[in-house]
């Protein structure tokens, strides 16, 4: 036996997948079924009691989805994954395992606008209280810790400004507070950054973006790093205490270092219900096979566009961590040496109106509320994704009125520059 271990690109194609046992089909089939027959009553009871490996019902698990779960877990270097209907669903399911009403979690202020809304309003109504901290000031995370803190939540590359978060510094705060660090790795993907290598305990993704990569499927995933000791004290009873719905099983005792992913499945997904369609899982899996190739092209194009915009007279500033002059360039070199991602913002000297005009003049860039597509995308966050925030919160989250966000696709970069050139001079 050799000690050689497969590399990232090999895992992107193979991890979790194996020729189908019944037909020999090489590509993972779409198991488009709600339910799976039991061998007998004992088999059914074993499956329901979490005592046997197998499938019951697609809300709880599905063989196509399981391949996706193992693949992303392997790419992230985690112990297990759980695919869900969206990135938002992943966040609900994760926090449901960690927080009780009245508890708190600390979140970086620079987040996807949808997450800011979800945390501020929906989670508040569950009694899960978000406490904001500034990722540019690690001390603000330390000062936010209280006896009610149950988790810390950050993005590795933050939306919309593409800033890079110092994961290791915030991980140290989480370890000291004895709470898990949750990292949303959507904009980086594990090709650029593997947060578990830097101290993350849980990784979440909107699969919708670069992982799926083609703008055709909504999906989310949770990856368990296997690094957190859930039984150290009584802070996480979903993991450490007997579960009445499963005959008194203690999930951490029974499942060890992938207990968190199991809790998300059997307590979160089962009871909250945001299951991923197997058809979406199939499309996302197909996308992931080319993740390394696409991310190389996304990053190469993004850097070229950022450089072009930096030199344009209509542009006031460009926020892209891949530029040597950028405030986050040192963090980008440390955490994301293969490229600083392909989502970034720039601001126009003409302010809000110039932003609105630019968006309407572009002919190749699509004006829509998504990122991480093969196609290049543009949006004016202040009037769309971040429109529900007040002006001060817009500025703090990197979505000031004069800011335009780009998600650079994998087209020929000369064509993207030409489109921006005509739109900026129109």
């Amino acid at each position, binding site marked *: *036996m050799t000690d050689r*271990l*497969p590399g990232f690109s*090999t*895992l992107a194609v*193979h*991890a*979790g997948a*194996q*020729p*189908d*046992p*019944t037909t*020999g089909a090489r590509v993972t089939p779409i198991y488009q079924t709600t339910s799976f027959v039991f061998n007998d009553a004992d088999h059914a009871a*074993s499956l329901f*009691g979490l*005592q*046997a*490996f*197998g*499938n019951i019902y697609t809300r709880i*698990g599905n*063989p196509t*989805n*399981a*391949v996706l*779960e*193992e693949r992303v*877990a*392997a790419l992230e*270097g*985690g*112990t*297990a*994954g*759980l*695919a869900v209907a969206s990135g938002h669903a992943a966040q609900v399911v994760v926090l449901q395992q960690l927080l009780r009403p009245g508890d708190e979690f600390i979140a970086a202020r620079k987040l996807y606008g949808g997450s800011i809304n979800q945390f501020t309003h929906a989670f508040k109504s569950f009694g899960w209280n978000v406490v904001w901290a500034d990722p540019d000031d690690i001390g603000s995370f330390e000062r936010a810790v209280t006896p009610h803190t149950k988790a810390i939540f950050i993005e590795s590359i933050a939306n919309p400004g593409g800033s890079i978060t110092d994961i290791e510094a915030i991980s140290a705060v989480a370890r000291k507070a004895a709470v898990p660090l949750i990292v949303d790795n959507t904009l980086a993907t594990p090709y650029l950054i593997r947060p*578990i290598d830097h101290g993350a305990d849980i990784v979440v993704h909107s699969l919708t973006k670069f992982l799926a990569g083609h703008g055709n499927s909504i999906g989310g995933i949770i990856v368990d*790093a*296997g*690094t*957190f*000791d*859930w*039984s*150290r004290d009584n802070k996480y009873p979903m993991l450490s205490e007997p579960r009445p719905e*499963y*005959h*008194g*099983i203690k999930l*951490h*005792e*029974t*499942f*060890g*270092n*992938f207990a968190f*992913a*199991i809790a998300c*499945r059997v307590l979160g997904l089962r009871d909250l219900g945001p299951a991923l369609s197997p058809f979406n899982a199939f499309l996302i899996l197909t996308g992931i096979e080319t993740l390394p190739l696409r991310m190389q092209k996304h990053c190469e194009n993004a850097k070229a566009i950022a450089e072009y915009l930096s030199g344009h007279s209509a542009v006031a500033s460009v926020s892209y961590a891949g530029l040597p002059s950028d405030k986050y360039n040192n963090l980008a070199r440390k955490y994301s040496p293969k490229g600083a991602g392909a989502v970034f913002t720039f601001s126009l000297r003409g302010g809000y109106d110039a932003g609105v005009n630019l968006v309407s003049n572009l002919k190749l860039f699509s004006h829509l509320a998504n990122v991480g597509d093969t196609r290049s995308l543009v949006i004016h966050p202040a009037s769309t994704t971040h429109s529900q925030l007040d002006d001060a919160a817009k500025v703090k989250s990197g979505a000031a009125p004069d800011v335009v966000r780009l998600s650079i696709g994998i087209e020929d970069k000369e064509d993207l520059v030409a489109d921006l050139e005509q739109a900026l001079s129109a």
Partner: protein
Amino acid sequence: MNHDAYPDNYIRGILNGVKSIAMVGASPVNVRPSYFAFKYLAQRGYDMIPVNPGHVGKLLLGKPFVASLLDIDRPIDMVEIFRNSSHIMPVVDEALRLSLLPKVIWMQLGARDDAAAAKAEAAGLKVVMNRCPKIEYGRLSSEISWMGVNSRTLSSKRAPLPTQGMRLSLDRTSVGGGETAASDRAAKNKSELS
């Protein structure tokens, strides 16, 4: 042996090599992990022997309970200990008194006793601590992949359809990552405290 992280080949060699397993602390209560690990390993073709002095006279899935390892009437390849870390040493001492020594001492997930491990290794036995043989068998065969668990293995061969009593191939290609285990550290800390 470094007991913080086991190479897949070490675990693979043990699970491919042993045939009979005495499970100390096996429970007849069908919601206990020891019960369903016992049941799974029996389904995968291992000769399972339940050891628990509190249940002598009863059967576990058709196999009679014995009170002690010394009461077993045939050679055993592996002793699997389903007890807390503080109860490991007496079981290892008993195993080392057998006329034909077992080849492997295996301590269940959450259990770790480095002194007991050193004693068993000095007598030529292999030791695994803080692992579940059901999870490891499921992982190396990829059967556990149904639950979204990272098997940390790859194969381009057609997967078998598992049937009752069937041994599965554990000889897939191993992959790095995912072996970080908080439970390992926790068990180690507990054994250092006790």
